[in-house]
């Protein structure tokens, strides 16, 4: 491997350590928020925002999505679209709930 390449990887390693620290801190924050006993709505929103930030850090830096090729990004955007549809499917069950028809 060339010297330039080695320097490049060294920078990556520094980023990995920073991401690890951020993930650890955010995990502690998630649990701290739980003990604050917020209202259900606020607790769900905050916990999901923190989890999304953590998940994005893992995907962008550990899985290198930040520098990934276009085809992979397109595949994943399509997956996200279907995932969102899937999550909203249960809401259809409310359409035939007693008293709504």
């Amino acid at each position, binding site marked *: 491997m060339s010297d330039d390449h080695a320097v490049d*990887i060294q920078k990556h390693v520094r980023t990995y350590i920073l991401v690890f620290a951020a993930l650890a801190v955010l*995990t502690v924050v998630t*649990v701290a928020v739980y003990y604050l006993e917020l209202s259900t709505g606020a607790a769900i929103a905050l916990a999901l925002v923190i989890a999304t930030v953590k998940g994005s850090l893992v995907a962008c830096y550990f899985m290198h999505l930040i520098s990934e090729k276009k085809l992979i990004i397109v595949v994943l955007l399509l997956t996200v679209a279907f995932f969102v549809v899937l999550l909203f499917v249960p809401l259809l069950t409310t359409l035939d709930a007693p008293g709504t028809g």
Partner: protein
Amino acid sequence: MEIPYTVAERPDTGVNNGRLGTWLFLASEVMLFGALFATYIMLRVGAPDWDALTHDSHGKLILNVKMAFANTLVLITSSVTMVMAWASLMRNRFGAFRMYMGSTVLLGGVFMVIKYFEYSAKLHHELYPSTNTFLAIYFVMTGLHAFHVFGGMCLNAYFWGPGAKLWKKDPRWFTNRVEHSGLFWHFVDLVWIFLFPVLYLL
């Protein structure tokens, strides 16, 4: 017979076959876990009193937040050791790769041991998947996730041990394999990052 595009990028896709295949597999995994998250939402929205399912008669949460918190830190650490294993190969440091990959497998083992104690406590208190809908979805989601952790451990252990022979024959191909194995491992970590708050904290 030589397998094409294990290292070189395919001109039409712009990526090597292993990387594209791994991401397509992970896309299918997103839908698998997505179906279970959707099930969780449906069960929770449809439950007359969700808190009654997640707490015992004394109002105490039936899940162990401390164990799950410890397991979250274990998996996050294993994700770092996994990516460091790959970075070590990129820097031509096979010894460091062995150390980091071995650590990743061991941390996976620690996760499974903590999970074993967690499950044991539930079964000891006669809390089964059949007890209520919350425990049903809890055991299915965490069980499927633990199965993935075990699968990832087997894969990583193979690359730590017998699979590492490829390093001498074709280092770039071996590095790619470790990178793709890492993609799976990070995905398992990512799923847990969402499972932890959804099942234990909300």
